């Protein structure tokens, strides 16, 4: 929103004046805030409604939308519009504004990622906090609307930045407008689902039935690049696309509903979608295939209607649906129709919920497509990738985007969602930097797939197993080497014979010990538990409930890569002891076990095939190298080092002798460089991130290849670090708090993306916390007026702080993950009348804390955030068994 806007409307927040009652007029555009906590609560309450209405004085029709919202309880529509209006209004300025605020200019990506949230969106009204209330109430209405309206097929909203729920709904309900998109093969991004783009053109596009890349016009920064991300983010919405596509297909070019066109001002003209028709469409598509369990309710709320379609993608996830059923013996009860197994709301980043965005016509992949026999119904549907013999296909999915272009149908068919691009191959999950998205499968460890399936090996997912026998010789070897390295050199003085003898003794001891302990240890999956027995002298047996699993890593040091082995680490919350290491397994088994663990954690059968993946980002080596080098500390050390050496050389030249002092300075510098530059460089070589229904998957490293999988909802907080020089490059680093990564592993594993274009960094944050959009959170500078105090933004979903003048750090904690809130007033800040507000999260590098907030404001922030948090928690189910929850898990109690 433009400054002007802001100023006009909101009460000012964090103002610096001592008087916290300051009125809106106080003009400091910088803080504009509409519903910020700076205002007195009472006032805020009073104004809440108004503000909203006034807020967009946007000259455009949008304004009307705004008003509408204020008054009509139908709200959502209004809201949607309003926001649209806002956006539109902002249009150009927005960029500036955001720049000023330091808000990432991600706009286009706003699409809500998780489809599931639809119903959750209505935050339970928390009435006692006025400032919050105004909002909440409004929102409620909106959501309500969402529900019903959807039915009515209001269709719209193509843009609704603010509320995703509406959107989501639509997705289901309908914006057929897009359908054509798909068809045309252009950018799916335009999809109804994500309307982040300032609406006008998008609407226009939609109307046109063309799928153009929305957004292109006004936001230069986003274009191009945007696609990747959008597509990505879109994943959530993909479903919708799929739907639309299909529906459109059914109905014929979008005439059915949704945005049909735009008026001159760019306001989308909406036409209600006729549900029936969509239903018909669905039918035509072969509803049966879809969800056996859940016949699509014809008129159901749009959200639901969408679901059936969504299901397909989750096939792997949902065995139940399949008529034939998955092979898994213990299949979870079919999650019902509505919920796509994975990807459920709270969690999965890219997840499938997003679904199915398959190519419209073809493939509604059979929903439950049972793995075994590719369901006939899905014509083009290729056999599920996991079907033996179809390996090529397996790898396909990841590459979907690429493939998508070439062969939309095929790619889409398999894993519809990501592939979404079905229609338009343009969706790229890769950053703009990577022109040609590498085939995912290349890096993807698809290979292992072969492993697990080898008939010769028993299925790790069942029964008890031992680690690979090679573990024994390796341990013995290690013991011998250590022995030789340490005491060995001393013993050498006694003579070679002795050394040999003792080495032999050590080796024998080691063999006996490791053989026995290897024999005595085992692991296996039992129900939803991982049971690990270990120990020779002190027997230990641990039984780990997989629903508590925080992350699963597969680590392969160089030697293990050569031998084809891998170590599997299961991270649990609970400190350093909360880690299970299984070493070593063959790579294939490790992969298989990982998949099984994650499937169990998701609440699915352990025999569920491996989850598909959609590429998110591949870090080009050049960028990694450049970015790591292009940092002040690194450049500074190099400079110092060179100077030192030069000085040393000069001294040597003039005096003739070497000044050892030079080394005293140079060596530490060199060590520092190795640690700060070489370390990350080697560590993150070949970095590749992808999204999958079972979480965010990271692969990196050559000398030590690692694959981390962080399930949906397990990321507790994220921060985006922008060293000063990187800002020039437009890249950032993304780190996260994951409860399993504590102690030493925290340093190792908390970096999610070492170097990534800024927009992708924010995009990932949006993926990790579905339904949120950091770029939309308004940041409010501290009232203290000191720049180093940074800024804070709180919206319904996020608590965002930004600080650091040189190295800018943006920390993001979703309310659903906040453990507690804390307001602190120290002796010094007491004198200044300021306080620090902090959102506590499980341990990690992130401590979201905003200092220098005016004290009254601080308290309002705490109360307001607590209320948001309560609402957010009610809406979201916990992260456990993310695949089985129904879509509406949210069902607010």
């Amino acid at each position, binding site marked *: 929103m433009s400054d002007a806007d802001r100023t006009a409307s909101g009460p000012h927040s964090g103002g610096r004046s001592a008087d*916290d009652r300051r009125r809106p007029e106080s003009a400091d555009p910088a803080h504009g805030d509409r519903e910020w906590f700076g205002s007195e609560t009472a006032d805020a309450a009073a104004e809440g409604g108004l503000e909203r209405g006034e807020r967009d004085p946007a000259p455009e029709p949008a304004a009307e939308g705004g008003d509408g919202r204020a008054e009509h309880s139908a709200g959502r529509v209004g809201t949607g519009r309003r926001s649209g209006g806002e956006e539109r209004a902002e249009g150009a300025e927005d960029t500036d504004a955001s720049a000023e605020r330091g808000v990432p200019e991600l706009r286009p990506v706003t699409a809500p990622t998780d489809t599931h949230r639809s119903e959750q969106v209505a935050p339970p009204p928390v009435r*006692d906090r006025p400032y919050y209330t105004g909002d909440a109430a409004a929102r409620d209405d909106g959501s309500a609307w969402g529900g019903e309206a959807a039915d009515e097929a209001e269709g719209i909203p193509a843009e609704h930045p603010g509320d995703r729920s509406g959107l989501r709904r639509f997705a289901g309900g309908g914006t057929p407008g897009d359908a054509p998109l798909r068809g045309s093969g252009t950018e799916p991004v335009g999809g109804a689902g994500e309307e982040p783009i300032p609406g006008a053109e998008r609407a226009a596009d939609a109307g046109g039935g063309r799928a153009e890349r929305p957004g292109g016009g006004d936001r230069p920064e986003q274009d191009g690049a945007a696609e990747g991300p959008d597509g990505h983010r879109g994943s959530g919405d993909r479903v919708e696309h799929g739907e639309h596509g299909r529906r459109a297909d059914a109905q014929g070019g979008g005439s059915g509903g949704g945005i049909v066109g735009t008026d001159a001002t760019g306001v989308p003209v909406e036409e209600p979608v006729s549900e029936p028709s969509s239903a018909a469409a669905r039918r035509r598509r072969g509803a049966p295939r879809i969800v056996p369990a859940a016949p699509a309710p014809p008129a159901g709320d749009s959200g639901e209607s969408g679901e059936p379609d969504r299901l397909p993608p989750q096939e792997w996830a949902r065995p139940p649906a399949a008529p034939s059923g998955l092979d898994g013996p213990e299949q979870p009860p079919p999650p019902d129709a509505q919920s796509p197994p994975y990807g459920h709301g709270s969690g999965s980043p890219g997840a499938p919920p997003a679904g199915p965005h398959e190519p419209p016509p073809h493939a509604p992949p059979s929903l439950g497509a049972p793995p075994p026999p590719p369901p006939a119904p899905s014509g083009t549907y290729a056999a599920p990738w996991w079907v033996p013999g179809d390996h090529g296909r397996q790898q396909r999915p990841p590459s979907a985007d690429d493939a998508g272009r070439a062969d939309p149908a095929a790619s889409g068919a398999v894993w519809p969602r990501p592939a979404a691009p079905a229609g338009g191959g343009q969706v790229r999950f890769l950053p703009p930097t990577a022109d040609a998205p590498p085939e995912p499968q290349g890096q993807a460890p698809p290979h292992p797939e072969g492993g697990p399936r080898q008939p010769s090996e028993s299925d790790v997912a069942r029964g008890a197993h031992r680690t690979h026998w090679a573990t024994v010789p390796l341990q013995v070897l290690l013991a011998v080497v250590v022995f030789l390295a340490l005491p060995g050199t001393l013993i050498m003085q006694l003579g070679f014979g002795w050394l040999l003898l003792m080495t032999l003794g050590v080796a024998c001891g080691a063999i006996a010990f490791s053989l026995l302990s290897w024999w005595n240890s085992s692991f296996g999956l039992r129900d939803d538990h991982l049971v690990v027995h270990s120990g020779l002298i002190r027997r230990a047996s641990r039984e780990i409930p997989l629903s*508590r699993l925080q992350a699963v890593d597969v680590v392969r040091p160089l030697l293990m890569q050569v031998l084809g082995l891998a170590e599997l680490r299961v991270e649990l*919350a609970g400190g350093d002891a909360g880690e299970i290491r299984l070493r070593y397994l063959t790579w294939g088994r490790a992969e298989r076990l990982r998949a099984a663990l994650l499937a169990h954690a998701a609440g699915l059968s352990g025999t569920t095939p491996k989850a598909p993946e959609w590429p998110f980002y591949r870090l080009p080596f050049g960028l990694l190298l450049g970015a790591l080098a292009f940092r002040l500390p690194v450049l500074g050390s190099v400079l110092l080092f060179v100077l030192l050496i030069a000085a040393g050389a000069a001294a040597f030249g003039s005096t003739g002798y070497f000044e050892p002092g030079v080394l005293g300075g140079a060596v530490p510098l060199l060590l520092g460089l190795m640690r700060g530059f070489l370390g990350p460089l080697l560590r993150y070589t070949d970095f590749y991130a992808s999204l999958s229904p079972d979480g965010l998957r990271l692969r990196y490293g050559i000398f030590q290849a690692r694959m981390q999988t962080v399930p949906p909802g397990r990321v*507790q907080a994220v921060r985006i670090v922008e060293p000063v020089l990187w800002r020039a490059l437009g890249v950032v680093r993304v780190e996260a708090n994951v*409860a399993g990564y504590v102690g030493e592993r925290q340093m190792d594993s908390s970096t999610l993306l070492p170097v990534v274009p800024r927009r992708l960094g924010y995009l990932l944050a949006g993926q990790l916390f579905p339904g949120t959009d950091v770029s939309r959170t308004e940041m409010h500078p501290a009232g203290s007026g000191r720049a180093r105090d940074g800024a804070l933004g709180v919206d319904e979903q996020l608590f965002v702080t930004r600080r650091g003048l040189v190295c800018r750090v943006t920390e993001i904690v979703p309310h*659903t993950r*906040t*453990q*507690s*809130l*804390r*307001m*602190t*007033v*120290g*002796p010094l800040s*007491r*004198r200044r*009348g300021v*306080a620090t507000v902090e959102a*506590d*999260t*499980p*341990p990690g590098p992130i*401590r979201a804390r905003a200092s220098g907030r005016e*004290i*009254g404001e*601080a*308290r309002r922030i*705490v*109360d307001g955030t*607590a209320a948001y*948090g*309560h609402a957010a*928690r009610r809406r*979201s*189910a*916990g*992260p*456990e068994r993310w695949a089985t929850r129904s879509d509406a898990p949210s069902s607010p109690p």
Partner: protein
Amino acid sequence: MTARIDAAFAAPTGTSWTRVSASLTWYRRAVLVAVLVPALVLGGAALWIVGWWWALAWAVLVAVAAAAGWWAARAVRDTWGYAEGETDLYLTYGLVTRQLVVIPYGRMQVVDVTSDLLEQALGMATVQVRTAATTADTRIPGLRLDDAVQLRDRLAARSETFSTGL
């Protein structure tokens, strides 16, 4: 300013701070004495060797510390307070650095009641609330034993009700 700070640290609407029992003051004072007396004796004895004036200075120092501690024990006790809101537990404490902590019931992983010997003697207990955030381990000391147990039960029940996982 003070008024504003107090306003900022007020209990949530509809509730008021439940202050902890006065025994906490005596608990702290007892601890204070238990620390200062040996310090006085040992330090004094050691310094006496150096010179009686040093010992005297030490004694004065200890006395001042004792006086400050005596007063602070009371003042700190007064700053402790908790309030059970509808969805969150509010906690405030701190004399020099004032803190307000808001812990949603749903986030409580463990609620403990502990009571050491001295606390038992004074008939009080400490309720400790743990969340997944280690920084947020919070305790409410100086509750009467019965109150502590009841509080724990209430909190445990609510954490169950509002539970949302990690």
